[in-house]
C-alpha cells in the first residue's frame, strides 16, 4: 500500500479542544527531567510573567499527537503505521504553552517525497489557543518504509 502521492496540501479538521492541566504540565516536566520552577510552581511562573506553569518545549507533542492520529487513521492517506519511523521533529513557537490553555490543532500535509523506495511525509500541525491565536506549530517528518 503506497503513500498517496496526492496527499500534499491536504488538511484535516481541527482536533477537539485540549485543556492543558497544571498537573499534566508538572507530570510531563518531570518525565523530561525539567527542573525549572517555572515548569512546576505557579507562583514562580507568575513572578516571571506567565499566568500559570509553563510547559516544557516538547509538551506540544501531546496536542500534536491527536492530529497525527487523524493522518495515520485516514485510509486514503495510505500510510501503514507498522512501517512508520519518526524522521525529524520541529516546534516553532509564538509563545510557550501554559496551564489553562485550551488548544486546538490543525494538521496540513506540507509535502510527500520519495527517497530510495521510502516515502517522507512532512505534516505541520498549527496549534492555536481559545482565542484562535497561534501558539506553536509542530512539524513532523514521518519516514514510511517501502516494501522490502
Amino acid at each position, binding site marked *: 500500500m503506497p503513500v498517496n502521492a496526492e496527499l500534499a496540501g491536504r488538511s484535516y479538521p481541527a482536533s477537539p479542544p485540549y485543556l492543558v492541566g497544571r498537573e499534566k504540565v508538572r507530570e510531563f516536566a518531570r*518525565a523530561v527531567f*525539567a527542573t*525549572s520552577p517555572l515548569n512546576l510552581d505557579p507562583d514562580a511562573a507568575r513572578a516571571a510573567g506567565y499566568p500559570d506553569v509553563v*510547559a516544557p*518545549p516538547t509538551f506540544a507533542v501531546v496536542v500534536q499527537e491527536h492530529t497525527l492520529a487523524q493522518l495515520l487513521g485516514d485510509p486514503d492517506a495510505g500510510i501503514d503505521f507498522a512501517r512508520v519511523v*519518526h*524522521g525529524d521533529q520541529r*516546534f516553532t513557537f509564538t509563545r*510557550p504553552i501554559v496551564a489553562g490553555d485550551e488548544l486546538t490543532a490543525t494538521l496540513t500535509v506540507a509535502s510527500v517525497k520519495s527517497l530510495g523506495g521510502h516515502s517522507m511525509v512532512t505534516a505541520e500541525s498549527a496549534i492555536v489557543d481559545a482565542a484562535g491565536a497561534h501558539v506553536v506549530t509542530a512539524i513532523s517528518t514521518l519516514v514510511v518504509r517501502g516494501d522490502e
Partner: protein
Amino acid sequence: MSAAPQKSSLTVGEVIAEHDYHLTRDTLVRYAGASGDFNPIHYRDDVATSVGLEGVLAHGMLTMGLAVQPVVDWLGGDSGKVLDYQVRFTRPVLVDADAGADVHVVAKVGLLDDDGARIDLTVSFNGETVLGKAQVRVALA
C-alpha cells in the same frame, strides 16, 4: 535559578551547558504515561525484538525533550525563551533493563543574530550521536 545570559557575552563555538542523563526502564514508563505514547517497543523486550530491534528503545521524543533542558536551565529556567527547536532522529537509544542508558548532552553557541542565538546540541549515547541537526533558537537581549 540564574538570570538569562546576555547575547553580548557569548561567542560562537562556546559551550554554554553540558549534562548527563541516566535513563532506566522506569524513565520510559514515566514518559509513556506523561506523553500518552504507549508504543510497547518502549517498555517490552518481547515486542521490541519481534519487530527486529535489539531491545527496548527510549522514545525519540523523550530524548528530544531532555536534550533541551540544559539550555532551558541556562536561560534562567524560562522555556518561554525557546523560539524554535528541531532535531533529526538518527540513532536509537537502547535502554538495558539492568544497566539503563546514559545520554550526554553538550550545548554550544552555533550562531548569534538579531533575535538571539542558535544553540547547537550534541546528544550522544555509547559514544555515538543519536540526534542530528539538533538546534534550539533562543531569544536573548
